[in-house]
Each structure stands twice: as C-alpha cells, then as structure tokens.
C-alpha cells in the first residue's frame, strides 16, 4: 500500500512528497474505505432484515424501489435527509445534538480492527479484541445522553434500560472471550484467526493433520459454550429482539430515540445496524474462523512461493476466497438474528437481568475454568512440572482435554438449567396463580 501511493504521488505525478504525507494519505484512504463500507453494510442489512422478516410473517416486504426492492434503503436515506430537524424546546440542546455522534463514532472505530481476509486487515492491533469491547462500551454513555437530553419520559426510560442492559451483558461477553484468550494466549484478532487453521483447534502444529482451515474454536467444548454465551450477549448488546427492551415500541414508543427526527434518528439506526454487523463478524472471527476455510491457506502459501507474476494472482484469489468465507459466515449470523426476531417474544427487564446473572455469568465462569484446563492439558509440560503430559501423544492429550472440558461444561449447563428451573418456576407458577385469582376476583 505504501509503495503504491509512493509510486503514484512521487514517480507518476512527480511531487516528491516526504514519507509522512504518504503515510497520512494511506491512513485517510483506509479510513475512507471503512467509512464507505460500513454504511453500505447497514443499507444491505436493513433491506435483508425487512425482506426476511416479511417472508417469515407471510408478507412480501419492500419490493417496489429497484429490482426486488433493493434500492429501498437508499430511498429511506433520502427521505431521512429531507425530514424536518426537530429539537424539542425543553430538551438539553447540546446534549441532545451530541448524543448521536457519541453513539456513532465508536462503532466506526470498531470496524477498523476487523480482519476481512488474510491480508485485508485495516489495523492489526496487539490489543485488538479488548479495544473492540472497550470502544463498544463508550456508546452506553451516548445512549444515556440521548435519553436524558431529550427531556422525555420515554426517552429517559429507554436510555436507562439501554445503559443497564449494556453494562450487564458486557460481563458474559467479555468472560466468553476470556476463555478464548486463555487458550490462544493473544488478544490480536489476526493471531486468533491464524490459530484456527488446521483441522481441529490446537492440532495445527501436528504434521499429520492437513491444513484445511477448519480448526474453528466452535468445534471444541470450550469454544462451543463460549460461542453460545457470546452470541446471546451479542443479541443483548446489539439490542436485538428477545432483548430489545430499550426500544420496546409497545411500551415506551422508541426508547431513547423518541424525540429524534431526520438524520439524527438515521445515525442511531446506522450505529445499531453497523454494530449488529460487527457483532456477527466478531462471532464469526472468534469462533468460526473468520476468513479461514478450505483452500485459503493453500492459495495464500502458493502466493508466497510462486513466481513473481503468479504470486499476485494467488494472493488476490486467497483474499477473495477468504472474504467470501468471512462474509458468508457473518451474514449467516445476521440471518440467525433476524430469525430469532421472527420467532421469539420480547423479554421483561427482570427476566433479562435474571438470565444474565443466574445463567450466563455462572456458565461463562465455568467455561473459563474449562479453558484453563484445556490449555493446561494441551500446552503445559515439564517446565510447569507436568512432565507426564509430554509422554502422552498429541492425539491422546487432545482427546483427554476434549473429554474433560466436555464433561465439565455439560455438567455445568445441566446443573444451571436445573437450579434455574426449580427456583424460577416456583415463583412464576405462584405469580400465575395469584394473577388468575385476581382475575376471577375482579370478574366476580
């Protein structure tokens, strides 16, 4: 990239600019590409969501603007731009106007650490994974600003709910990724993807295993449980349907967005859909190998070893194939999100928090312990005083780790389901009975 810009500016145009200008041009180009791609994803996702949910509800959905209604989101965008910009008199003007910016900016920063292909990495950061979650937590403050600055009861209620939900579901999400960090020993998204080559996780060093790019973490008990917990928390973080309490339209109109009109509303919408895309993408990257898949590594290695002319072709092919795998996985998870919206009713806020406290957090904590055991069984040896592990073969160690973590995770899951059934059901049954007696009392 640096060489290309250097060539264009200094050789072809003969400007002779210094190095830092070239770097700046490079950064601005990358940022510009990201800032174009993210809204495009949002347009596509809103269209897909409306069509899919329509099909699930036995409707047609938007199909008039453009082929199959494909330009509907563009039309919506134009409409939003030409709507009147309303700032309520009683609102806190600057807080009200600043809130959409505070919500949107972090989402764009999160886009920058997502690896799209083997070499399509905007920014490879050592702390990429933690950066992603740290930046995503900033928008909670923006939501509270929106709720408070609008001077509206619905807005304030929605903002409070959104912030509480965000703070709450961050814990299981971060605990799930902690399990992955323990196994991989890195926070860099690129390195986490590199580990997921091979055929089964942690076996890609073994020479007998072909590198099919299928060493996804979801194939291990630790990764599978982490994936389930993470995806559920992602639904809550992205305010997707079973957890869309902050904007429950049957109770509090549109939550924190109630007083927003025109493009201010559009920015919230944009932030939400880009966030959903990113959460699906990060799920695909952490647990489903991102761009890893059969053939990518092979093409990529050919790109390195082949002759100069052929290497470019192979590298481009590898990146295109990787990008296709990555987008296919990401869109599949978005489809699952829409599917859940079509299938599940909305939770109440007490159910939401109960589920987090009494199910997700204990489960993810157990998963962290299993991840530790997995890492010990696979990676430790004589330096840690466990020389007997080295005596076992790679396959035996892997099998032992798999069986051990599977038993622990399954036992934790079943145990927690039992505990929650006994403690949860009794109260709901009692409440039910009370409700029914109340109803009969009022009827009689």
């Amino acid at each position: 990239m640096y060489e290309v810009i250097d060539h264009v500016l200094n050789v072809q145009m003969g400007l002779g600019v210094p190095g830092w200008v070239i770097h700046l041009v490079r950064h601005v180009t990358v940022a510009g590409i990201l800032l174009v791609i993210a809204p495009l994803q949002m347009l596509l996702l809103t269209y897909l969501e409306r069509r899919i949910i329509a099909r699930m509800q036995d409707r047609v959905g938007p199909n008039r603007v453009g082929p199959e209604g494909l330009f509907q989101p563009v039309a919506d965008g134009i409409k939003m731009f030409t709507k009147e910009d309303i700032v309520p008199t009683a609102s806190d003007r600057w807080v009200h106007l600043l809130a959409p910016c505070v919500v949107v900016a972090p989402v764009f920063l999160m886009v920058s650490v997502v690896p799209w292909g083997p070499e399509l990495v905007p920014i490879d950061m050592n702390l990429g994974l933690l950066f992603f979650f740290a930046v995503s937590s900033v928008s909670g403050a923006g939501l509270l600003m929106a709720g408070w600055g609008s001077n509206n009861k619905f807005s304030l209620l929605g903002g409070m709910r959104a912030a509480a939900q965000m703070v709450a579901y961050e814990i299981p999400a971060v605990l799930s990724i902690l399990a992955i960090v323990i196994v991989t020993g890195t926070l860099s998204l690129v390195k986490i993807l590199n580990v997921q080559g091979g055929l089964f996780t942690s076996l890609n060093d073994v020479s007998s295993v072909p590198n099919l790019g299928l060493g996804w973490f979801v194939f291990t008990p630790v990764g599978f449980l982490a994936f389930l917990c993470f995806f559920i928390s992602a639904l809550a973080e992205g305010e997707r349907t079973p957890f869309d309490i902050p904007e429950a339209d049957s109770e509090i109109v549109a939550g924190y967005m109630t007083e927003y009109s025109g493009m201010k509303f559009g920015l919230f919408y944009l932030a939400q859909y880009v966030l959903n895309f990113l959460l699906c993408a990060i799920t695909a990257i952490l647990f489903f190998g991102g761009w890893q898949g059969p053939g990518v590594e092979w093409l990529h290695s050919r790109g390195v070893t082949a002759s100069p002319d052929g290497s470019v072709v192979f590298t481009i092919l590898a990146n295109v194939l990787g990008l296709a795998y990555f987008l296919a996985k990401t869109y599949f998870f978005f489809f699952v999100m829409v599917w859940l919206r079509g299938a599940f009713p909305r939770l109440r806020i007490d159910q939401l928090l109960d589920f987090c406290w009494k199910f997700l957090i204990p489960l993810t904590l157990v998963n962290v312990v299993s991840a530790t055991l997995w890492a010990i069984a696979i990676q430790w040896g004589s330096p840690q005083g466990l020389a007997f592990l080295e005596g076992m073969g790679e396959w035996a160690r892997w099998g032992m780790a798999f069986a051990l973590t599977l038993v622990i995770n399954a036992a934790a899951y079943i145990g927690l389901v039992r505990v929650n059934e006994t403690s949860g059901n009794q109260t709901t049954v009692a409440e039910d009975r009370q409700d029914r007696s109340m109803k009969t009392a009022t009827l009689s």
Partner: protein
Amino acid sequence: MLTPYVPILVLFLLAVFIAVFVIVLSSQLGPQKPGARKLAPYESGMEPIGPAMRRFPVKFYLVAMLFIVFDIEVVFLFPYALVFRELGAAGLVAAGVFLAILMAGFAYEWKKGALKWD
C-alpha cells in the same frame, strides 16, 4: 509503538466529522416549520404530565454497581490470561484465589436476593 494508533486517530476524526456534517446537512435540507405543539415532549398525544427529568429507582444503580465490580474483576484477569502459560502452578493458584474471593461475593449476592429485580 504508537504507529497502529495513528490510523485510529484519523478514522476517529473523520467519523466525528461525518456525523456532525450529516446532522448539519439534514437540518438544512429539511423544512423548518417549528410550532409549540411540535416542539413539546412527545407523550403519545397527551398533555405532558410533570417534568421528565425525575428521580429514578435505585435498582438501576444497584445493577450498575454490581456489574462494574465484575467488570473490573474480568479486566484484572486479562493480563494474567496472556502469561498464564509461562507462570505455571503459582500463577494458577494466585488467580484462583482472586476468583474465589469474588465468587464468595457472587454467592452472597445470590443468597441475599440482590439479584432479584424487586
């Protein structure tokens, strides 16, 4: 090295610029016909009852407080998770004790019923 953060800074400035630009542009493009009714708080068509910025139940505060304690705990575990391989059994015991103390707190909450949303 700060180099990976220079593009982040560029991206941040561009993103903020675009957000502000979009808001300003839409406020200029749309019609401007404000009215007392239009600028009043929206309460499903009713006359607004009382001020909107009122006190809130302590429940939200409790939830935030409990979760932040856990947040900090998890953050403490991240540096450990990265070096967990080379530290061996001693590190395992240290982190185990750390986690056990917080689990005691979690058990206390659960027993006390603090996790119930009223």
